[in-house]
């Protein structure tokens, strides 16, 4: 098992996440895709830490930090979605177009 496999997995996850963010119509789906991209980053951190600096913990620490952050983000994100839904009565992002120029 080499670093490349991890990086490939992480890249795949990130790409799937990005694809989901850009293409999902449902705002909940977008939030879930963001989770995927964050976890891709976590895998990167942990993998680099494991293979390049085995005796140290900076990568792991960062991963834990990001997990915490992701939890907080979901909280805020879902709250925002609730608030928007109350106003616009829709969960589809194409209806969120009040910023149109």
């Amino acid at each position: 098992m080499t670093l490349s496999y991890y990086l490939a997995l992480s890249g795949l996850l990130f790409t799937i996440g990005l694809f989901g963010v850009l293409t999902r119509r449902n705002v909940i789906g977008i939030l879930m895709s963001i989770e995927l991209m964050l976890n891709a980053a976590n895998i990167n951190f942990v993998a680099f830490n494991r293979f390049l600096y085995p005796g140290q913990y900076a990568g792991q620490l960062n991963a834990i930090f990001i997990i915490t952050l992701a939890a907080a983000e979901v909280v805020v994100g879902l709250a925002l979605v609730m608030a928007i839904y109350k106003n616009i009565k829709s969960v589809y992002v194409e209806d969120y177009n009040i910023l149109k120029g």
Partner: protein
Amino acid sequence: MLEYVYILPLLSFAVAGLILAFGRWLPLKGASAGILVAAWGFSQGLMLFVKAIQGTITLPYEMSIPWFSFGGNQATLGVYVDGLTIAMLIVVTAVSLLVQIYSTGYMHGDPRFKRFYCYLSLFTASMLGVTLTNNMMVFFMCWELVGVCSYLLIGFWFEKQSAAYAGKKAFITTKLGDLGFLVGLMVLFYATGTFEISKIQELAHAGMIPAAAAGAAGILMFLGAAGKSAQFPLFIWLPDAMEGPSPVSALIHAATMVAAGVYMVARLYAVYALSPIAMDTVAWTGAITAFMAASLALTCFDLKRVLAFSTVSQLGYMMMALGVGGFTAGMFHLTTHAYFKALLFLAAGSVIHAVHTNDMREMGGLRHKMPITYITFLLGTLALCGIPPFAGYFSKDEVLAAALARNPVLFAIGAMAAAMTAFYMARALVMTFHGKPKDAHKHDHAHESPAVMTGPLILLGAVSVVSGFVLTRHEMFEHLVNFEGALPFELHHVNHSAVALFSSIVAALSMSLGVWLYKARPDIPAACRETFSPIVNMLEKRYWLDAFFLKLVDIGDSLSRFMFSFDFNFLDQIAIDGWAWLTLKLSKIQGWLDDHVVDAALNATGTITMSAGRMARLAQTGLVQNYLLFVAIAVSIFAAIAFAG
């Protein structure tokens, strides 16, 4: 009392205003105020005269207050009194007084009676200003005021077309001369640096004025005098001025205003004496005028015009006297002439008042109807003709003697004029008062004038008889009025008695001839008119001087018409309108440029900005996913670049 002499003109001015404003409520509609002031002025003049003769006042007296300053010069306002002033002062106030008294009768019932007296007072004030001022600037102002009064009074009966025209003619003709006066005054100021008469005299006596400047100033100012004193060729206005009321003719156009020109030359005699050319100009103009005017009077049938031509002729005499160096003679003639000519005019006015015509052919035989007028007219005639011992004899004799002393030719012209004077006055006298009445109706209605009119006549008649005799006693007049400077030429010695004898014989002969011809043989003058019709025609056309001036006006007229057409057709049409057309075209081009280039550039900027904005709007979809896509693409590109670098 010299200290208060300045009040005279001021008071007269005030009275003119008073009569204009409150005349309606004053006794005699304001005439009383004018008469009172004139009487007071006359008494002042007389007292000054007596004191000057006695030598109890020192002359010349000058008093002035500063008026205004210009450049480094100070103009003053004040009075200058010497013998000349006093002589003129008496003439002005005396004639003014008598004329104003006379006019209460003559102008009785005239609808503009009040205005007449206002004008008379204004005239008297202006004339006193001319007489008394110490400053040529004020002199000129009063001189012009006098001209204005003359204009107003000639045209007093302006309902009559001819009177209105005569006023205009007088004003314009004298203005022509005044232009010369003004220029002369400037030359004089340039040469002396002052307007004050006493300083000009001082400089002239000291020889500080260059002869050329003095000559130029003298001749130019003489133009003004020629206009006002009716000298050749500007005398054409005076006969027409007879359209005015007779008292006006007596006051203004016989005694005072027309003498202003002579007075001016006398006032600046020191300047004239510096230049022989100026003196000769004055002398010859005077002589020509005297002769011409006397000849014109020969064929005239209008009583007042005969007297007017006679006035012109006598003014020519005065000018000639001044020009030949006879300063005292000229001023003496001015003084005596003022009285007897005023008398003649007032007497003529009395006749006209009675018969309501000026034409001598409609008069005749009036001596029984109007004895006082006849006697006084006779006295005036004798004085004018120079029959001893009347006033004119003394003064005219001195003028002729002065002329002979300078130049025998001038003397000959003067003597011929004197002969003609005696002849035409005899003719006028006979035609008016003697013979059979030619118009029975007018003769029947004629009557002697009231006492207010005959009174002044009698007074003036008395003065005409005695003034020459009295004023020559102990050389009284010569002590008062004489010229102390040097003359620019030598004078011959003249036997005064011979000249006097000669002139009185000539006058007496000529007068008898006139009386005989018109009384006993009126057919001879009529035959002469036939025989010498070209000459008579020339005289009746007044030597074509009127035609000459009219031609001059015509030339000026056509010149201005030409100028007008040049202005209208060329300057206006081509230059001005052309310029406007060009400007219009240019502005059209500019307008097009503005619309299509400048504005287009501005609009293009706006349009480009707007379409850029419109395009940029397309990116702002409002869909967050689109924005994110852009971010992703951008990051990818940057990442690619980073890796490639």
